[in-house]
């Protein structure tokens, strides 16, 4: 018997919480005393309503069932201001990254862009292939015409290694 969120009837999921804490390399809870500095300075708060302090507290209380499948965890801009300024070194950014990883693991909705990039890397080694750019003077330039060295693709062994790495949880 622990607690219940009466608004949503959600109960804590301690096993999932412990998995999150394990991913963060922690044995105990995240040491947060809700000073709110992270949220006050959060780049993503005004536009996307991301509240890092809230996510940390939900994790500590174990009310994490809905977090990996939520949209909010994908709004973090990774500016790292919260990590820099937290007086207790609680690092909400790392908590969010851990939640994102769990979302992928559980097959929850992940913004397409991320999954596309993973395939791209698998295929070519790069997150995006070299492009042709159009200048202000409407000229088309690519690496070759810009006299830049050719891009060297990874050797054959890369794909298997990367796929193996992706299988780690």
């Amino acid at each position: 018997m622990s607690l219940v969120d009466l608004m949503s009837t959600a109960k804590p999921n301690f096993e999932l919480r412990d998995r999150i804490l394990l991913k963060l390399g922690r044995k105990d809870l995240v040491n947060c005393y809700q000073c709110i500095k992270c949220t006050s300075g959060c780049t993503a708060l005004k536009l996307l309503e991301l509240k890092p302090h809230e996510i940390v507290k939900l994790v500590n209380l174990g009310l994490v069932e809905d977090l990996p499948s939520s949209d909010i965890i994908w709004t973090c801009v990774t500016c790292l201001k919260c990590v820099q300024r937290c007086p207790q070194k609680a690092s909400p950014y790392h908590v969010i990254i851990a939640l994102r990883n769990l979302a992928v693991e559980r097959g929850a909705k992940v913004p397409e862009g991320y999954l596309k990039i993973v395939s791209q890397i698998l295929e070519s080694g790069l997150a995006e292939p070299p492009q042709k750019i159009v200048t202000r003077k409407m000229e088309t330039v690519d690496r070759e015409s810009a006299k830049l060295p050719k891009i060297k693709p990874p050797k054959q062994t890369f794909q298997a290694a990367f796929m193996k790495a992706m299988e780690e949880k």
Partner: protein
Amino acid sequence: MARIGVYVCHCGSNIAGVVDVEKVVEFAKTLPDVAIAKHYAYMCSEQGQQIVQDDIKDYKLDRIVIATCSPRMHEETFRRTVEEAGLNPYLIEIVNLREQVSWAHTHEPEKATKKAEALVRMGVARVKLLEPLEKHKIRVEKGVLVVGGGIAGIQASIDLANAGFRVYLVEKSSSIGGKMAQLDKTFPTMDCSMCILAPKMLDCAHHPNVQLLTCSEVKEVKGSVGNFKVTVLKKPRYVDEKKCTGCMICSDNCPAEAQSEFDECIGVRKAIYVPFMQAVPRVPVIDMESCVECGLCEKVCPTHAVNRAQKPEEIELNVGAIVVSTGFDVFDPSAIPQYGYKRFKNVITSMELERLVCASGPTGGHLTRLSDGKIPRSIAFIQCVGSRDKRFHEYCCRVGCMVTLKQAILAREKIPGDLKIYTCFIDLRAFGKGYEEFYGRARDMDIDFVAGLPSEIHCAADGSLYFDVYDRGINKLLEVHADMVVLATGLVPSGDLWKISALLHASRSADGFLLEAHPKLRPLESAVAGVFLAGVCQGPKDIPDTVAQASGAAAKVIDLLSSGEIDIEPLKAVVDKDLCSGCRICESICPFVAIEMKPEFVKGEEKLMAEVAEAVCQGCGLCGSACPTGAVKIQQYGNKQVVTQVQAALAKTCSDGGG
């Protein structure tokens, strides 16, 4: 042939919960020369002690081993116990079965019991080789050195002086009073700080038993409890204290100005100055760095008290005890650039605000902005700046919340009409007597409490400030505009506390303040005998607690020195002159400077030999282990006693036959 009594304490379940005490007792009975072995729930209790005393008589015991908690807890107690029963108090051995066994090996009871047996075996072997020793008394100086002339030092000095002790109050600045002199009002009563401080300052200075040494610092401390030899360096103030009448004509005429440290560098002072009008002693000091050497002060002084040729003076004092009351520094928020301190003129610290609202301050008590002298129509307070922060100081500064409440109330009272006041906090702590009521008073004064801290502060073109802060009470992101921002900066250990710490060998705790002997049971003294702690130098606290601690420290000193003599433990180093070769290794290795080489006549020749100053020696044993000839020995810790313990540790007798 000795007759040893062995007593194994349960210590409630502290020891017996892990160690099989009955087994240990049975094992003890098998050891040679053990006449009686028993176990009991609480050896330190009256009944426990009675058992030992009765057994000494009934079984004619001449050595006692008590296997119990750390000797630091009850060794003294048990010494008295056996002494009352007619046995020399130094013929007992305490074996630590708690800190070293049951608490260290809580989850391995079998191994713990074996270790307990081994330790008892060692104790029994050693106790046989102990020699009867006597404490003896030394005369003590009935003088006390108080370092630091803030409210803590002042209170301790008054109490000690009233009790008949000679007090030397050393203060590094030119006046006593400390940080309390800079405050306007004090919470929760809103007493004017200087009004309650000044009478105490005068009582202290005028007391016949108090000698004030301002502009002074402790340079050296030798000796030990009861007999400290202190060298105080009195720096020149360039004004003769005996001739000066405090008329301040010199200061009025001085053309040179400098930033006033007392006014937190907001206001100015002259090169020849007293830091504040109620300074004690009311004798100015010349700050040579800002002095332009015009000589006017010398010319206008009616009593010719100005003496630019004054030299530093060294004063030797003999005291029996030292009270450290050196106070604190205020956290410098320049270390948090995103809050804008020093970048934006209207971001100030609580101490700077204190000077602005104080009638004796640089603005005559008018609360105005530093950038343009205008009255602020909105003030924001930010709590925990530099405190509760793993990047700066992890502790809570204890007074920040109350200071802000006080300043918020003062601002409301000082500025009639429109004034928005916001306080941004994590937790609001109002724990003392009258403090919660004070918080209630603030809540009644239209002060907005924002439950959250801002991440950064920005400045607009007109010098006013703005910042975003999320309030977790209403779950909204607020943009706060304030004409002035006050950073509630915490109390931090003084920058030069390391000096006092080194001079007195007084350790500091992890937070940087001076370490008390025991946080709950002995909060008024350091671990160094004869050195007592009073005020914030031991940890952040408010004025009521500071005054209480100061009087408490004074009482401890009175307790120590009032009889005029104290007992010296005989567990010190002694030198066998027959064996001393005069090599001086012990002299160089002693961390307490307790060994001196003295000339002795040996076979008609004069030789230098080591001599231990018993009162200074702490019995640490370094000299004994370093001495190449074995001339230096620590009483009860000679080679024989130590080696026999080692041999007993390695012996194979145990109740199960294991090692």
